[in-house]
C-alpha cells in the first residue's frame, strides 16, 4: 500500500501553518496556546498513524528544473521517528504552559517549537536530498531560536550561537555529501533520480559501486558522518549539546534529547543500507563507542542535573551510532530499538528534571536529595526511567543495550578487524559502567536524606506530571512486553535500516552468552563502584581542570570566540588605512594580471614597431616626460602645479602634431582651468612637504614596474595594430558630411555617431559640479559618530514645506522653480 500524498503533506505542513499563526492565536488564547500545540501535535500524529503500514514515496513538485521535489518516503523507520516526534511533542506542549508560566516572548517560543516539530517530521519523511537538507537546517534554526530563548542572558546566547555554528556548519558538510551523492545518482540512475533518496536506496549496490568507481565513497561517507555527527553531538563536537541546556527545560526534553539530536542517528540509519561496509564499521563503531564512553564519563563529572542528562544523551547517541555502525543485523536492531527506548526514558527524565528545578528551585546535584517525600509520583516515574537508562533488566533500556553488546561481539565474526574485535566489546562495557553510575546518581536525588538547605518543594501541577508519567508508562509497557513493541514498530524500522533484515526477537536472556556476561559485568561493576561515586566525580573534574584541551568548550572558545580577535587584527592589518598600501596592491595586481595575460598568450616577442613617430613628436613627448620628472621633484606646490601645466601644454602640442586640433584646443583650455582650480585650492592649503628617503626605493620599484607594464602593453598593441585606418574611422570620414551634416568629423562623432557617450560625459560634468557643490555645502554635517549622517534625521522624516523652508529653500535656489 502506498502512502497518501495529501495526508503526508498535511502532517508535515500542519505544524508550520500553526507556527505562522501562533502570534495571532496567542493574542486570543494567551498561555493556553500550549494546549493548542498539543492538539496540533496530536493531529499530526493522527495523520501519520493513518499511514501506518504503508510504504512508498510521494512527491510534490518544487523545482522541476533541478529535479528537486518535496519528495516524501513513508516506511516503518520514517513513521517511527515522525510519530515519536509528534507524540513527545504533544506531551511537551502539554507540559509547557505550566512550566513557562509568566515568561515573556511565549509566541516566539511556541512558534519555534511548532516549526521545529514540523521540521522533524519533515526530516523523517523527506526522501529528496534537498528536502532533507531543508528540514535538517530548519531544525537547527528552530533550535537556535529556542536555545537563545532567554535573550538577555549571556550564556543562553553563547549556547545558541554555538549550537547554530556547530549544527548549521555541520549541515554544510552534509550538503556537500548529498551533492556528491546526487551527482553520482544522476549519472547512474538517471537525472530524474539525482536527488531522489528513495530511488538510491532501492539500488544500493549500483550506488555503492558507482561511488567507489569515482573514488567518492570515502568522501561521501566522511561528509555525511560529519553532518550526522555534529547534529547528534558526537565527539569531538559533542559539547554543544550540554551547552544547549541553556534552553528552557521542555525544549531540552524535546529537541536535545528526544528528537533533534537523533536526526543524525536517524539519517545514519536511513543511508545505512546504501553505504554499509568495512569503512562504515570503522567509522561509526569507533565514533559511536568513543562518544558513548567519553560522554558517560563527562556525565559522571556533572554537577547540574540537566548537564548530567545532557552528557548522558550524547553518550546514548553514541550508543545508537555505534549500533548502526556494526554491520550485522544486531547493529541495526540496536540502533532502531534504542532510538525508541532512549526517547521514552530520556524525555521523561528531562521533564522530571524540569519538575525538580521548577519546584525545588535548584538544579545542583549536591543540593538535592530525598525528594521522594516531596515528589512521590515524580520519584516513581524516575525509578522506572532511570533504571531503564542504566540498562538494568527488565527495564526497556536493557534490551537495546544487550543488542549492542551482541553486535560488538559479532563484529569480529564478520570482518577481519584484528584487535578491534575485542576492543569494541571492552569499550562498550567500560562506557556502560559509567552509564550505570550516573543513572544511579540521578535516582539518588529521590532517595536518602533531604539536605537541610533545600527549601520548600512544591507539588507539581498535573499538567507537569502527566507527560513524564505517560512516558514512564510507555517505557514500562515496553519493559514488560518488549516483543510487542518490536512487532508493532521496531521491526518495520529494522527492515528499512538493515541490509539483511529478519524477524527480530527480544526478551530476557534465558541462558548464558557473552553479551549476557557483559551485561552482568557492567551492572555489577557499576553497583560496586557506586559508593566511590564522589571520588570518581572529583577525579574526572580534576582531570578536566588539569588539561584544558579536553574540556568541552575549550576548542570552540579558542577557534570561534578567538576568531573575533584574530579577525579584528587581521582586518586592521590588511586595511591599515594607508593609501600607499592600497595603491601598491592595486597597481601590483593590475600589472601582474596584464603581464601574465601577455606572457600566457605569448604576446611578448621582439616587435616590428608599427607606429610612425616623427622627431617633433618624440621631442614633445620628451619634454612632457621631463615636465613630469620636474613635477615629481618639485619642492613647492606652486612649482609643481606650474610644471604640471607645462606637461599639459606639451600634451596639447602632441595632439596638434598628431593631427587632432579639437583635442589640442580642449587640452589647452582644460589645462588652463585645471591650473586655475589648482591655484585656487592650493591657496587655502599651507605648504607642506617632506619626502621620506626610506620609502623612495620601494616606490621607485613599483613605479618602474607600472611603467614597464605600460611600456610592454604599448609595444605589443602597436605591434598587433593593423595598418591604416579602421573600418569605423573610414566610415566616419565618409559619413560625416552626408550622414552627420558636418565637416568636423570629431564633432560629428561626438554629437551624432557617438552622441550617447557625450550624454554620459555631460552627466559626468553635471555630476562633478553637483558633487563639488555638495562637498562644500555639506561641510560640517558629519557628526561625531563614525559614519553618522543622522544629524537631520528628525526633519528628514518630515520633509514638509514648513520644515524645509529654513534649511532647503535658500540654497537649492528659489529661482529653479
Amino acid at each position, binding site marked *: 500500500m502506498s502512502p497518501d500524498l495529501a495526508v503526508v503533506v498535511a502532517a508535515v505542513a500542519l505544524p508550520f501553518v500553526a507556527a505562522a499563526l501562533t502570534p495571532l492565536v496567542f493574542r486570543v488564547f494567551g498561555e493556553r496556546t500550549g494546549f493548542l500545540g498539543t492538539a496540533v501535535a496530536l493531529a499530526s500524529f493522527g495523520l501519520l498513524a493513518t499511514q501506518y503500514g504503508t510504504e512508498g514515496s510521494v512527491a510534490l513538485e518544487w523545482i522541476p528544473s533541478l529535479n528537486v521535489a518535496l519528495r516524501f518516503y513513508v516506511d516503518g523507520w520514517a513513521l517511527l521517528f515522525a510519530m515519536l516526534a509528534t507524540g513527545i511533542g504533544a506531551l511537551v506542549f502539554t507540559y509547557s504552559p505550566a512550566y513557562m508560566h509568566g515568561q515573556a516572548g511565549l509566541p516566539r517560543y511556541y512558534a519555534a517549537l511548532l516549526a521545529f516539530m514540523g521540521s522533524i517530521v519533515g526530516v523523517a519523511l523527506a526522501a529528496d536530498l534537498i528536502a532533507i537538507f531543508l528540514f535538517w537546517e530548519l531544525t537547527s534554526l528552530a533550535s537556535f531560536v529556542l536555545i537563545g530563548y532567554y535573550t538577555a542572558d549571556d550564556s543562553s546566547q553563547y549556547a545558541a550561537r554555538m549550537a547554530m555554528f556547530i549544527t548549521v556548519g555541520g549541515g554544510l558538510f552534509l550538503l556537500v555529501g548529498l551533492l556528491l551523492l546526487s551527482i553520482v545518482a544522476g549519472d547512474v540512475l538517471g537525472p530524474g533520480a539525482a536527488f531522489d533518496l528513495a530511488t538510491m536506496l532501492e539500488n544500493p549496490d549500483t550506488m555503492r559501486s558507482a561511488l567507489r568507481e569515482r573514488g567518492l565513497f570515502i568522501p561521501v561517507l566522511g561528509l555525511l558522518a560529519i553532518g550526522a555527527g555534529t547534529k547528534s553531538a558526537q565527539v569531538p563536537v559533542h559539547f554543544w549539546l550540554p551547552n544547549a541546556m541553556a534552553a528552557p527545560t521542555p525544549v531540552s526534553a524535546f529537541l536535545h534529547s528526544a528528537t533533534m539530536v537523533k536526526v543524525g542517528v536517524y539519517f545514519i540509519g536511513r543511508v545505512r543500507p546504501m553505504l554499509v561496509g568495512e569503512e562504515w564499521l570503522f567509522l561509526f563503531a569507533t565514533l559511536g563507542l568513543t562518544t558513548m564512553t567519553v560522554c558517560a564519563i563527562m556525565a559522571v563529572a556533572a554537577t547540574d542535573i540537566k548537564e548530567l542528562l545532557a552528557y548522558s544523551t550524547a553518550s546514548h547517541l553514541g550508543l545508537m551510532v555505534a549500533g548502526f555502525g556494526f554491520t550485522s543485523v544486531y547493529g541495526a536492531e540496536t540502533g532502531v530499538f534504542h532510538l525508541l527506548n532512549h526517547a521514552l526514558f530520556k524525555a521523561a527524565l528531562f521533564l522530571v528534571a524540569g519538575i525538580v528545578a521548577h519546584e525545588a528551585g535548584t538544579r545542583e546535584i549536591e543540593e538535592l536529595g530525598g525528594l521522594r517525600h516531596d515528589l512521590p509520583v515524580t520519584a516513581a516515574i524516575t525509578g522506572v526511567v532511570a533504571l531503564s537508562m542504566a540498562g538494568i533488566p527488565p527495564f526497556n533500556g536493557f534490551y537495546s543495550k544487550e543488542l549492542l553488546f551482541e553486535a560488538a561481539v559479532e563484529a569480529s565474526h564478520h570482518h577481519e578487524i584484528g584487535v578491534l574485535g575485542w576492543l569494541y566489546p571492552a569499550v562498550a562495557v567500560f562506557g556502560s559502567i559509567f552509564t550505570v553510575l550516573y543513572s544511579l546518581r540521578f535516582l539518588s536525588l529521590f532517595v536518602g536524606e533531604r539536605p537541610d538547605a533545600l527549601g520548600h518543594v512544591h507539588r507539581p501541577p498535573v499538567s507537569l506530571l502527566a507527560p513524564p508519567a505517560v512516558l514512564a508508562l510507555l517505557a514500562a509497557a515496553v519493559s514488560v512486553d518488549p516483543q510487542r513493541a518490536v512487532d508493532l514498530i521496531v521491526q518495520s524500522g529494522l527492515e528499512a535500516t538493515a541490509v539483511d533484515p529478519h524477524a527480530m526477537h527480544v526478551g530476557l536472556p534465558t541462558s548464558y552468552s557473552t553479551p549476557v556476561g557483559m551485561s552482568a559485568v557492567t551492572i555489577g561493576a557499576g553497583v560496586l563502584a557506586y559508593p566511590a561515586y564522589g571520588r570518581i566525580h572529583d577525579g574526572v573534574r580534576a582531570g578536566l581542570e588539569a588539561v584544558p584541551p579536553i574540556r568541552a568548550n575549550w576548542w570552540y572558545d579558542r577557534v570561534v570566540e578567538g576568531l573575533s580577535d584574530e579577525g579584528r587584527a587581521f582586518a586592521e592589518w590588511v586595511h591599515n588605512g594607508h593609501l600607499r598600501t592600497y595603491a601598491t596592491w592595486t597597481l601590483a595586481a593590475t600589472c601582474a594580471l596584464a603581464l601574465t595575460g601577455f606572457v600566457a598568450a605569448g604576446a611578448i616577442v621582439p616587435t616590428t614597431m608599427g607606429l610612425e613617430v616623427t622627431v617633433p613628436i618624440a621631442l614633445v613627448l620628451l619634454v612632457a616626460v621631463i615636465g613630469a620628472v620636474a613635477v615629481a621633484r618639485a619642492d613647492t606646490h606652486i612649482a609643481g602645479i606650474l610644471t604640471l601645466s607645462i606637461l599639459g601644454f606639451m600634451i596639447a602640442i602632441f595632439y596638434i602634431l598628431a593631427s587632432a*586640433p*579639437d583635442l589640442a*584646443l*580642449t587640452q589647452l*583650455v*582644460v589645462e*588652463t*582651468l585645471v591650473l*586655475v*582650480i589648482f591655484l*585656487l*585650492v592650493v591657496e*587655502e592649503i599651507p605648504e607642506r612637504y617632506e619626502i621620506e628617503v626610506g620609502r623612495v626605493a620601494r616606490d621607485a620599484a613599483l613605479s618602474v614596474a607600472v611603467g614597464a607594464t605600460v611600456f610592454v602593453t604599448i609595444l605589443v598593441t602597436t605591434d598587433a595594430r593593423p595598418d591604416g585606418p579602421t573600418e569605423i574611422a573610414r566610415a566616419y570620414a565618409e559619413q560625416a558630411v552626408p550622414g*552627420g*551634416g*558636418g*565637416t*568636423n568629423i*570629431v*564633432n*560629428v562623432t*561626438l*554629437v*551624432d555617431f557617438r*552622441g*550617447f557617450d*557625450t*550624454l554620459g560625459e*555631460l*552627466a559626468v*560634468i*553635471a555630476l*562633478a*559640479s553637483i558633487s*563639488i*557643490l555638495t562637498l*562644500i*555645502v555639506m561641510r560640517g554635517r558629519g557628526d561625531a559618530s563614525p559614519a553618522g549622517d543622522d544629524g537631520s534625521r528628525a526633519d528628514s522624516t518630515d520633509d514638509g514645506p514648513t520644515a524645509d523652508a529654513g534649511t532647503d529653500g*535658500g*540654497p537649492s*535656489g528659489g*529661482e*529653479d522653480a
Partner: protein
Amino acid sequence: MRTTARAIVPIVLVVAISLFVEGHNLPGGGFIGGVLTVTAFGIVYMAFGLDFLERGVLGREVDPGKGPSRDRVVLAYRRLFAYGFAIAVVSGLAPLVFERPFLTQTFVMLEGVPIYDHLEVASALAFDFGVYCVVVGGLLTILSVVGAE
C-alpha cells in the same frame, strides 16, 4: 591685469562662441566653446574678484554672509547646467516622436543666408548647445564655489 582682462575677455568670449557655432564643421564644438567661455569668466574672476559679476555688471548687492552655494550667480550657473542637461536630454528625446531612435540627429541646408551663403542647421546643434550649457554652467559652478573658499 585688469586692463589685459578687459581686452582679452571679449575676444575670448567671441572666439568661444564662434568655436561653438562652427564646431560642427571646423575644430570646436560645445565642449571647447564651453570651456573657453569658462576660461573667459575665469579671467574675470582672477582679475576682478568673485563679486564683480554681481556688483559690477549686474549692479546687485551681495550679501557677504551667505555661503557660496547661496550666491545668486552660482544659482544662475546651477540653473544653466540643469537647463543644458535638460536641453540635451530633450533634444535626444525629440526623435522618438518621429519614431526614430534616441539621439538621432538630422540637418537641413539653408541656402542664401547672409555671410555664410549656405548654412546647415543640424539638430545636433541643439544637443551641442546643451553640451555648451552644461559645460559652462557646471564648470563655472565649480570655479565660483572653489573660488569663494
